[in-house]
């Protein structure tokens, strides 16, 4: 009788632990090379639940919002990045490269600003694109430096450098990952939730950094050398557009577009 009680206690403890222990476990193989994204969940604050969203009315999407991002004041001098500590990286650059965290050109346009539709498309459902977004490591720098991606879209991370990098993604809403990569190695990841913006860094080379913005929709654009962005083919309506820069923070604007209209807006960042 005593033994029977003890056995039941042991079995119940096992069951209880099995419940606690496996609550979080993913379905992947051992190691951290999984591409399985983290569990589903309602981490998205503000967006409608996927079951309530309707299909995106492509035929009505005729409007465009585009524009420029400029700097108010004298453009700050472009800083240089000191590359040291790795013979390959040092050899990849004859002169120190520009610091991509603040690139303001002579005409005051700002590069690497992530512009996206913050509000206005929440009620639509968008299919996940089949093409991946590719992040490469070239000359010990991330290419591109700023990028956008849709939740559930494949994120191909690769290295073209003959040195070891590690791609360390640190997000607030998305699962952290960290992969060491040698030349030619590739890892495929996915993000489950919206997050603007999350940082990717290399722990081995501290000057390397990139940012990725994860959205539920494809309306994002990263400004280039001329500071221009374009968010095309939207249905008429009211939208809130946000411009994000890693050093200059964010600016928002409300824009209303009619059927077939193209609106040009400007974001101005001060010092």
């Amino acid at each position, binding site marked *: 009788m005593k033994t029977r009680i003890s*056995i039941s206690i042991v079995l119940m403890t096992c069951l209880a*632990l099995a419940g606690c*222990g496996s609550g979080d*476990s993913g379905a992947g*193989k051992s*190691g951290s090379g999984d591409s399985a994204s983290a569990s589903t969940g309602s981490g998205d604050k503000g967006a409608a639940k996927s079951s309530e969203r309707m299909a995106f009315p492509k035929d009505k999407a005729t409007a465009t919002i585009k524009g420029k991002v400029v700097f108010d004041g004298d453009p700050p001098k472009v800083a240089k990045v000191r590359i040291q500590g790795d013979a390959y990286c040092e050899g990849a650059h004859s002169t120190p490269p520009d610091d991509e965290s603040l690139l303001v050109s002579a005409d005051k346009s700002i590069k690497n600003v992530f512009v996206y539709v913050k509000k206005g498309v929440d009620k639509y459902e968008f299919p996940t694109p089949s093409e991946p977004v590719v992040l490469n490591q070239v000359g010990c720098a991330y290419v591109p430096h700023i990028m956008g991606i849709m939740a559930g879209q494949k994120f191909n991370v690769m290295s073209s450098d003959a040195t070891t990098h590690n791609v360390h993604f640190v*997000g*607030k809403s998305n699962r*952290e990952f960290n992969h060491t990569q040698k*030349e030619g190695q590739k890892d495929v990841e996915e993000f489950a939730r919206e997050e603007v913006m999350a940082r990717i860094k290399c722990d081995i080379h501290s000057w390397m950094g990139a940012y990725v913005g994860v959205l539920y929709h494809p309306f994002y654009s990263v400004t280039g050398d001329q500071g221009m962005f374009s968010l095309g083919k939207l249905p008429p309506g009211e939208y809130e557009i946000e411009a994000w820069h890693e050093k200059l923070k964010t600016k928002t604007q409300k824009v209303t577009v009619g059927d077939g209209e193209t609106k040009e807006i400007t974001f101005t960042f001060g010092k």
Partner: protein
Amino acid sequence: MSTAVGTAEHVEAHHEEHHELGFIRKYIFSTDHKIIGIQFLFTGLLMFVLGGALALGIRWQLAWPYDLPFGNLFPESVAKAATVGGNTVYTMGGEFYTMLVTMHGSVMIFFVIIPLLTGAFGNFLIPLQIGARDMAFPVLNMLSYWLVWPALVLMITGFFVDGGHAAAGWTAYPVLSEAQTAYGTEVPTPGSTMGQTLWCASVFFLGFASIMGAVNYVTTIIKMRAPGMTMFRMPLSTWALFITAILVVFGTPVLASALFMLMVDRVLGGTFFRPAQGGQPLLWQHVFWFYSHPAVYIMILPGMGFVSDILSTFARKPIFGYKPMVYSICAIAGLGFIVWGHHMFQSGMNPALGMTFMVSTMMIALPSAIKTFNWLGTLWRSNMILTPAMQNALAFVSMFVIGGLSGIFMASTPVDIYIHDTYFIVGHIHYVLFGGSMFAIFGAIYYWFPKMFGKMMNSKLGTLHTVLSFIFFNCTFFTMHILGVAGHPRRIAIGWDKVNNIGYEFLKDVQPLNEFMTWSALGLAATQFIFAFNLVISLIAGKKAGNNPWKANTLEWETTSPAPHGNFGPTIPTVYRGPYEYAHPDAGDEDYLPQARNLGKA
């Protein structure tokens, strides 16, 4: 009708024996210490295979960091394809490597050596050697085995969770092992999400299993010895297990507290080891090593005890210096509690402690040296029979000497500045844990297999296994000392990659040794199949064993092979002398004189 001294529960268990037990109660949920011991034996040997496989993974990477042979056969998480000079090669990332290193140590220490030495042989031998019918608390004993299974399940689950298993070393130093499981915080290492938490929980459970067993052992030895079995007539196996059990009782709760604090930090946002909130990572090291240093003595003392029994039996000669041997065991255990700081000489703790711990650590070499000399004294002018058990015992003595002597280098704090966290330490660890404990376990299995299963193991296969293991073992692990002297750090995935010219240039000359060690390790692993084969074949078709195939003196050989439920038939033997009366003049033509033989003299 029983003349044994025992607790009320023991008497009740005795009554239960009269009912015929079903298969489940007899062999699965058994309270018979012999069955529990055998359960621990098989579980431990199974985990030895897992631990060994993890070790081979480590050696695979270290030998060929530029291109893992057969890398294409493994999943991406193990070996990733890379392009070098237009060719596809397979390399292992640090993520997987640090996990291998962590889990090899954790599995071997917590699931192999401690369960085999204390769980398997502690359970099997103690009542038999002291003349008791079973342990003082048979049901607690059964629970101590079954608690291993939740621990095992938790530990195995860790391999399959998101992020992989724990990867912060078996020593789990914070801050690396600290990070939290919630998203949005910086996680210092893969494996530091669920893996590390499962690891903590698993070891926590195992600790309880250990403590439950130890409480049983201490009580049984103190209270349930047969008539005439005074403390100083107990075999050294029993003495060693007794003192080990005391170490477990005092040390393991400290580990539990360390694990608990780590879990609180990880899961409940505690700050024991977080410097930002006033915590101190060094605290973990002190608490962890306060247990883990006595743990290494837990892992060697039983082996020393078994070796003493085996040496004496096959030397056909009494143990030289029985009482000094007993006192040495006690001294090792006692001193074992005041040397933990030698793991932390370079840690940033107050260097003045480096002086005090150096002195205590040097002194703990002394009782081990005394034991070694006494073993040599036992062998001198003996009449040696080289059975596989004896061969393993001799291997133990010689390998333990090397392991112990290399410890002197580390005890010397200035020398430790150089060799700390290098392969010199790894060499030392493996000489005492494999060269010591594992050979003792092999020897104990060869020796007590007949008593456990009633069959003899094949002696030729045993010799082959022992000799090959000895050769491959030395090739694999002696070389590590050379690597350490050259400065090769521990736990690094690449020493020197000669194809891509990356790594540590000062290790260029010793990199070929990494390859050599991998080949030896593969040989060592392959050799263990001989042992496994021998075990299985002997269980199925081994020659039937008599009561006392080795003509030994201790009480377990007084009964049948295998021993029956209740151990000794209707009467418990009475003990008339010490356990090592070989070559006794009063024994007439025989060269042994069992403890329980009544010569009719006063």
